[in-house]
Structures are given as structure tokens and as C-alpha cells.
């Protein structure tokens, strides 16, 4: 613990968690975790001194940021989503305790089991220590996605995550297009290339309109990897009701390949075995034209998301100034996909 704020947080945690764990608690270490720029993330080393949970425990502490990402879940909602996906068999760390107002009024936090591994994209796609992991990841990720997408509004999941434009009762394609229109209208200047991509999306709609729980940011960088393969899927803040192909296509976007353009699955895997495993496990056939639509849509979503960084607390973080300048990369890739076809 290096700052006064961290020391104060440790003191508050000790008091709050003593009640939650039913016994005195010592905070041995509280270490900021970088990544997940939209949230407050820490590694929390605890010692529970008495009671039924006595012993040393390591958690990830994830708290609401004062300036949350646009349209993302609050921690209390994310807590419920993670509980549901863990029950469904997705490889993700279990959440243990929700701590209301830990970071201020309305700024909640939760404790989740600490999982090993790295989420750093360049290391995952290039590191020699991950050579075996890279061969296993496509199938492991397909397994997690198949388990996740088994959760549908029809299976009775009432997660309380409905938010415009993503509603459990709304066609996911219409929702996506409405979201793009809103995002474009919120920009300070016109983006004709994005408007053209949106026009193409409207005129070439996919056939599949299924609705399931989707991760919403399923990509290299948002899962932990060890030398053995997938350790844990992280960052559920973008989870929403949507079309399952959104997650599959998002994992293949050019920007998440970290320069390995010949490895469409996250920069480490071939497309065919990944899709075959997903189809086999989920029982959902995939139309190539539908997947292509979601890849074009994914690039537009990321282009508009990049531009929106300029609107979010401008000047606060250097990353937020750099990211909007990357929007033409995603616009170009969407146009390239339109030009070359499925």
C-alpha cells in the first residue's frame, strides 16, 4: 500500500469485511491492478483471523469508477452476471462479497477469487511461454462462449441488465443499429465513413436474431492466460442481451490480433476449429454471412467507441486522447470487410 488513499481503503475494508466474514480480518496487501481502465481494480491479500472462513485468502477487488464507461454495468449488476455465468460453467472467478458504497456513495465494489495468468495481449500472442496455451485457447474459449450463450431470457435469467439499446425483448440487430445511430448523433462532427458502414449494415441484415447473454467485450486482453491455457474470462462490465455471434465476431476483430493478422481468433488461432468447436458445443449453426455482418458491426462499434473516448472526461487520461485517433483503423477494416465479403 503506497498512497494515503490506499491506506484509508484498507482500513475501511478491514472494518466492512470483518462483518461480512463473521470474524476479524487483516489486510496484508492492497495492490492496484492496471488494465480494466473503466474500473478500480486491486489485488487484495487478506487474513481472516477467526470464524468459519479463517485463513489467508487472495481476492481481486473490483470497484465502480467515479467516471464509468458509456453504457457499462455497475458493479452490483456485474456481480449478479458473474454469479450466473459461473453457475452456467463459464471459466471465470467466482464472486464472493458485494461491498456497497466502498468507493463513495453509489460506488460499490465486490470481491472475486483471484485467478493466475496474464491478460497482456502482446505477451499472449507472442510470448514463447504461451506456445502450448495458444494451441488450447480457441477450443477453451469456444467452450466458455457455448456455456455463456446457453443463458437466454427464455431460461428465466432475470439479471436486471436491460439498458438501451440492449433489451431482452428487442431484436439484437435492431438494437445494434439503434445504438450506432445514437453514438453517431452524439459525436461533435460528422463521420461519413461510419455512416456508410451503418448504411451497409442496415441493407445487409443477418438472418440469425437469437438473443442470449453476451459478454460484450470478449477479446484477447479480457481473459487471463497461463502457460496451460485459459485461466479466467474477465471484465463482464459490457455484458448484455444480444446475439451470440457478436461475441464470436468480436474475438476475431483485427485490432485484438496484436499484429498477428493471419491468426483471426484473437491473434493466436485459426477460425475453422474455433467455430467448429462452438457449433458442436452450443448446437447453434453459424451462417458465414451473419458472422461477417457482426465483424463489420464490431469494427464500427469499436470505431465509435474510440471516438467516444474523447467525450469521456477529456484530458483526464493520456489514453483517452490517443484512442480517438485510432478510429480510422477500424473504419478502414470495416470497409475492407465489406469490399472483400464473407
Amino acid at each position, binding site marked *: 500500500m503506497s498512497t494515503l488513499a490506499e491506506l484509508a481503503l484498507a482500513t475501511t475494508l478491514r472494518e466492512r469485511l470483518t462483518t461480512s466474514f463473521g470474524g476479524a480480518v487483516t489486510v496484508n496487501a492492497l495492490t492496484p491492478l492496471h488494465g480494466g481502465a473503466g474500473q478500480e481494480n486491486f489485488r487484495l491479500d487478506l487474513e481472516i483471523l477467526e470464524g468459519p472462513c479463517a485463513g489467508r485468502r487472495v481476492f481481486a477487488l473490483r470497484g465502480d469508477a467515479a467516471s464509468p464507461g458509456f453504457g457499462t454495468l455497475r458493479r452490483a449488476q456485474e456481480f449478479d452476471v458473474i454469479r450466473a455465468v459461473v453457475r452456467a460453467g463459464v471459466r471465470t472467478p467466482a464472486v464472493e462479497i458485494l461491498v456497497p458504497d466502498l468507493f463513495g456513495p453509489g460506488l460499490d465494489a465486490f470481491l472475486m477469487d483471484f485467478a493466475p495468468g496474464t491478460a497482456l495481449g502482446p505477451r499472449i500472442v507472442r510470448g514463447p511461454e504461451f506456445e502450448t496455451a495458444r494451441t488450447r485457447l480457441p477450443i477453451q474459449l469456444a467452450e466458455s462462449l457455448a456455456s455463456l450463450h446457453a443463458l437466454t431470457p427464455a431460461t428465466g435469467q432475470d439479471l436486471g441488465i436491460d439498458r438501451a439499446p440492449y433489451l431482452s425483448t428487442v431484436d439484437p440487430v435492431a438494437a445494434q443499429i439503434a445504438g450506432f445511430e445514437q453514438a453517431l448523433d452524439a459525436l461533435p462532427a460528422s*463521420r461519413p465513413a461510419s*455512416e456508410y458502414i451503418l448504411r451497409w449494415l442496415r441493407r445487409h441484415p443477418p438472418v440469425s436474431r437469437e438473443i442470449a447473454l453476451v459478454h460484450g467485450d470478449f477479446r484477447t486482453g479480457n481473459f487471463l492466460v497461463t502457460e496451460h491455457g485459459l485461466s479466467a474470462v474477465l471484465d463482464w462490465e459490457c455484458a448484455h442481451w444480444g446475439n451470440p455471434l457478436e461475441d464470436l465476431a468480436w474475438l476475431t476483430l483485427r485490432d485484438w490480433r496484436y499484429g498477428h493478422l493471419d491468426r483471426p481468433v484473437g491473434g493466436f488461432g485459426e477460425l475453422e476449429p474455433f467455430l467448429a468447436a462452438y457449433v458442436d458445443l452450443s448446437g447453434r449453426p453459424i451462417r458465414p454471412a451473419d458472422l461477417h455482418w457482426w465483424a463489420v458491426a464490431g469494427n464500427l462499434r469499436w470505431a465509435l467507441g474510440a471516438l467516444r473516448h474523447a467525450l469521456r472526461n477529456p484530458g483526464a487520461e493520456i489514453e483517452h486522447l*490517443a484512442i480517438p485517433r485510432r478510429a480510422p483503423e477500424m473504419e478502414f477494416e470495416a*470497409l475492407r470487410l465489406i469490399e472483400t465479403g464473407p
Partner: protein
Amino acid sequence: MSEATPLPELLRAAAVFLAERVGPALGADTPMAFRVRLVAQMLESAAAEAEEGPAILVEKREALARLLGVRADVPTLEHVLADRLRQNGDLTPDEEQRLRGYFLSALRGELRMLAPRFDTRLHPEEPHT
């Protein structure tokens, strides 16, 4: 002023200093080293914009004027084009092809400046230009 270091050269020197001197001193995998690399890239991009930006803007204005058949500044022309596209009217295959050609060319121009290492080929088997 004529003897002062030109702006692109100044920005590139600052980028090299950050990337080659400051970054390594911070340790390869630290969050601050990541940010220093990011700032070095931002300065490189600013240098390219200072050098090529005005010419790219003129090129874009001329291409938009040809496409739309009206003359105005770039923000106005882009607004007109975006508005027409949002109205979702039909386009002939020829118009559609011209539009795509315009966007690909305009984005290649921007990327030459903003992300010089970004591969703007449509197919991997195409030769690099």
C-alpha cells in the same frame, strides 16, 4: 524563426527520446513505460500530421467536392455526405463503388498520417504500396 528546428523534427526528436531513453529506464512492463511508449507514438503521429496534414486536407476537400458536386470546407462537405447516407436513399452500383473508392482512399490518406504502419491492403497477397 527560420533557423529554429522544424516542428516535425522537434516532435520526432521528443518521441525518440521518450521511446529510447525514458521508456527503458522505467522497466519494460511497467504501466508508466506503457504510457511513455504511447506518448512517443502520439508525438510521432503529431509530427506526421504537421508534415502531411495540410496536403491531405486539400486532397480530401477536392475529392469530396468531386463526389458531391459542391464546393465548401471539409467539415461542411462531410456533414452533407453523412446526411445523405443517413437518409438511406438508393444508390446505383456505380455510385456505390465510387463512394467506397472515396472512403478507402480518404482513410488510407488519414492512416498514412495517424498510423503509418497500418497495413491498408485489401488482401494479404497484394503487394505493399
